[in-house]
């Protein structure tokens, strides 16, 4: 596949690419992670090219799932000028899933992504992520899994951004000043057509990817085995979700939890005093806040098929409920049932969204 070789470090290389797209008027804006204060990083939409110096696309943080942010941005209508979007693979998959659910539009977006080595929990921002970077890049070079990364990242198998237009190859990358940007799609080619003279032939770092994938699969087996969800039952569910303070941060952070108003936040889910009284008559005591288990299993059923495994939910939970691990472990089997990887392809229909008999036969036991 054609590729652009830029003799710079990854973030600088992306910056140079975006700057040249800007200067050649191919794009009118950039959506990427940027440094906002001394220690803070956030997604930003940048239209002033002078401010491009602030972007830090590979900083190992995910303060929000960009898929959800881009959905907010494009829900009513697509962006009118081309924007380069630099996001991680799971964010891109979340966005594609949201497009299928009519909650976002892809028009005029150029997707730049990279083979992802994961992010740290967002709270690491407080002490400054900078002191983690050396160890992070060292582990990328050696192909090891860092144990203080987000759990979702340590066990992620879908870390190659198959649906990006331009892919920066980072898996196993050493600290040399050489960055390879693969041009994956026709759209990518069009944006870089006047660079066609400088392009080289390159490919994904397949061997390193496979190596990493097998390590992550092992890690996943270990993590999933550690959390014995299959022993939960009602008792286990009540215990683990009994910690829930009903803040619904997991659903706010979840990219594929797209309802305008969640049923569990609507007046319909409120208990009337007479209902509460009846519950009390029957059981003698009621746990408050009510329905925390119901909320979580309800959400699990709703997002099980479309969960992209980004781990935002666990990251957001103030009482350290392993929401991601529980959800992803059950979702994995459901997704396998339909051979469905959320967000993998834009034209792949979400299972059970339309009826077809074949689907029925597939799941018949």
């Amino acid at each position: 596949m054609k590729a652009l070789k830029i003799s710079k470090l990854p973030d600088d290389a992306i910056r140079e690419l975006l700057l040249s797209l800007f200067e050649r008027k191919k794009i009118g804006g950039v959506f990427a992670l940027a440094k906002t204060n001394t220690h803070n990083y956030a997604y930003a939409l940048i239209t002033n090219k002078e401010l491009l110096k602030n972007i830090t696309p590979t900083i190992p943080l995910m303060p929000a799932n960009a898929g959800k942010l881009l959905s907010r941005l494009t829900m009513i209508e697509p962006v009118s000028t081309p924007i380069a979007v630099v996001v991680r693979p799971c964010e891109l998959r979340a966005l594609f899933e949201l497009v299928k659910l009519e909650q976002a539009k892809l028009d005029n977006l150029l997707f730049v992504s990279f083979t992802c080595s994961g992010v740290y929990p967002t709270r690491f921002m407080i002490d400054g992520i900078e002191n983690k970077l050396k160890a992070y890049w060292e582990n990328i070079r050696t192909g090891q899994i860092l144990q203080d990364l987000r759990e979702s990242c340590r066990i992620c198998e879908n870390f190659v951004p198959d649906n990006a237009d331009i892919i920066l190859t980072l898996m196993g990358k050493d600290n040399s000043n050489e960055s390879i940007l693969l041009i994956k799609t026709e759209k990518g080619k069009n944006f870089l057509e006047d660079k066609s003279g400088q392009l080289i032939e390159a490919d994904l770092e397949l061997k390193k990817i496979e190596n990493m994938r097998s390590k992550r699969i092992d890690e996943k087996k270990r993590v999933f085995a550690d959390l014995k969800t299959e022993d939960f039952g009602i008792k286990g569910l009540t215990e683990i979700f009994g910690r829930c303070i009903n803040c619904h941060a997991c659903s706010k952070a979840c990219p594929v939890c797209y309802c305008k108003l969640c049923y569990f936040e609507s007046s319909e889910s409120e208990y009337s005093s007479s209902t509460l009284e009846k519950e009390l008559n029957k059981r003698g005591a009621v746990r408050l806040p009510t329905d925390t288990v119901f909320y979580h299993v309800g959400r699990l059923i709703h997002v099980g098929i479309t969960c992209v495994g980004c781990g935002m939910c666990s990251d957001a939970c103030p009482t350290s409920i392993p929401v991601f691990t529980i959800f992803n472990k059950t979702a994995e089997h459901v997704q396998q049932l339909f051979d469905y990887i959320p967000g993998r392809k834009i034209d792949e229909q979400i299972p059970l969204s339309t009826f077809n008999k074949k689907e029925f036969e597939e799941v018949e036991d």
Partner: protein
Amino acid sequence: MRVLLCTCDRAIKLPDLDVGPDNTIEQYDNMCKKKPDITHDEKVVIAGCSPNLMETLFPNVNAEFVNLYEHIILVGHPVYKAKDLILAAIEKMKVITPVKPKVFTIDNKSALVIGGGVAGIEVASQLAQNSINVHLIEKTPFLGGMVAKLDRLYPEGTPYSHTLMPHIGTMLKNKNIEYSFNTEIKDIKGKVGNYKIMLQTRSRGVIDCSHCGKCIDVCPVNVDDEGKKRKAIFYVPTYPETYAIDFKTCTKCGECIKVCLGKIELEEKITEKEIRAGAVVVATGLNWYDVSKVEEYGYHRLPGVMGTLEFERAIASGTLKPKKVVIIYCVGSRDSKHLPYCSKICCFLGLKEAKLVLDRYPNTQVYIAAMDMRSFGTFEYFYNTVREKGVTFIKGKPSEVIKRDGKFVVRTEDLYTNELLEIEADTVVLSAGFVADNATFDKLGIKLNGDFPVIYGNASLGNIELPRGIFTAGSATFPAGVADTLVDARKAAFSVLSLFKQDKIEAILANALVNEDLCSVCRMCIGTCPYNAISIVDDKIKVNEELCMGCGICSITCPSYASQLELFNPQGLSNQIKALVRKGDILALLCRWSAYNATDRAAYDKYMYPENVKIIRIPCSGAVDPTHIMLALISGAKGILIGGCYPDACHYVRGNFLAKAREQVLKMNLQHLGFKKDIVRLEWIGKDEANKFVEIVKEMNK
């Protein structure tokens, strides 16, 4: 809320039932003999015998029925269970909004008929004879539709005009029909009894015509109109008797204007006009399937391979005198790549073509290559007639048509002789199936997904309680011969007349309603609606009241429950489950059309089942939300049974298949959350299968 309790001649006594301060309890000894009055705008809980019976006593009420007789008395279950059932029903009804009666006023008693073929002509004629004002629109410049394109009609073999012209003549005698040609509907608003329709008309070109025909002589543009040669200015001998310009091919040379005794305008004008009607009859007919898509038969690629109509017209006009003809049947039909269905009439059309050519040129060799000959009913005589004329029938589907030494070669197997054949021929006719004319249905909000609107047209499936304002006639719903089309047209006319007999129709019927405040417009509901009743109107989800049958499937497809079925909303059901389920219970959610009836049967036949089986009646197994099942488990249920109709027997087409798929997903989730695999069971239970129901719940109770 009133709680109406029938003690069934004091067979059940609930003296200390506390229904709460907001509710009142009324006891009756025999509700079936002394019927309490219930108004349409109040909510009630009716406890007595089976809802199957109660619903006939109290039609159209906002009620939750508690089955005390069949579920308690006859099966010997204790009184506390009766109380639980009643209190749970109250909890449900508490949050239910009464269904607003749907009032349809038939303000306008004129009809719009779309399509000027034989179906539309017959509908217009019948309605006009019954003093209904009719507006008939036709998208071409002339009446006649498909029939006017043909030479002869099967099985009699009479020219089309023998049938069509008398019908046109009868129609024209009526003064209360307005005709618009070159006209289609642009847009339709309103509902039954009051439609506002915007019509769009393309000008005819010929303004004033004395029917002299001089324009045809001078027009330099030759057009091949499906095998018939004509000019860019032309006439079809039906109605009206005014020539018309085909603006798609006209070069605007102006030769016709020079010789015209009347007036011709060569600029095509488009005009719009709004009309009103109380009913619409769709008689848009059908189109031939595009045979060039069946590439192996070489239509277009091999000049001379013809469609049925081209062949018929070429024979009729004498431009084709074939020596050896092969007619290939089922081109694209009964083929998953093309048309999955049988178009029903093409077998006869093929036989007719064979007879046509043999009537004119008896020495022609005619082969018909067909997988099956479907000449049902009296058409068997027609088949015999054609066979006796010497047509050779080959059982098999030709694999391809090629050209060799200037001749066509049809390669086929013959299943009668088990041979592979190569038939040389000078003419190959492709007898294709038919497709619906989708454009009009789209505008009327009836989605087809590329198929015929069979469900919409099928009177045995429709929602008979709701008045319908859009009717179909003839081949618009499925290919039909002329005789069947005429019968269907009269049926449609009769339906319109029945509607117009009324001034106001009131119906209380549970529909799905969409709460726009909750709706994220993700469109998930659209794909799962069995009736294509949901569509996007002005960027919002809209449920077509006329099409919604009230299954509730959309409601559970929606993650935010924005779409809710009246009298069966998720909040009500979760309240009911919370109030009903005690630790160790088995909750049975049973489809009202099948499994629920089996529990009544169990009571009559004295099949006893454990008292901890609590039954809730639901509209369809497809309307069971996995989250409600989880709620029941959280509430302490030790098992949940969902009872639905057998595959393909679902009252709502495919609710049970959806239920099955969802059950599998839920089971997978449950298994990984530490529940036993069969804690949830979806079972097909027929309405009389009492023993099956009882065996299942007993097994679950172990």
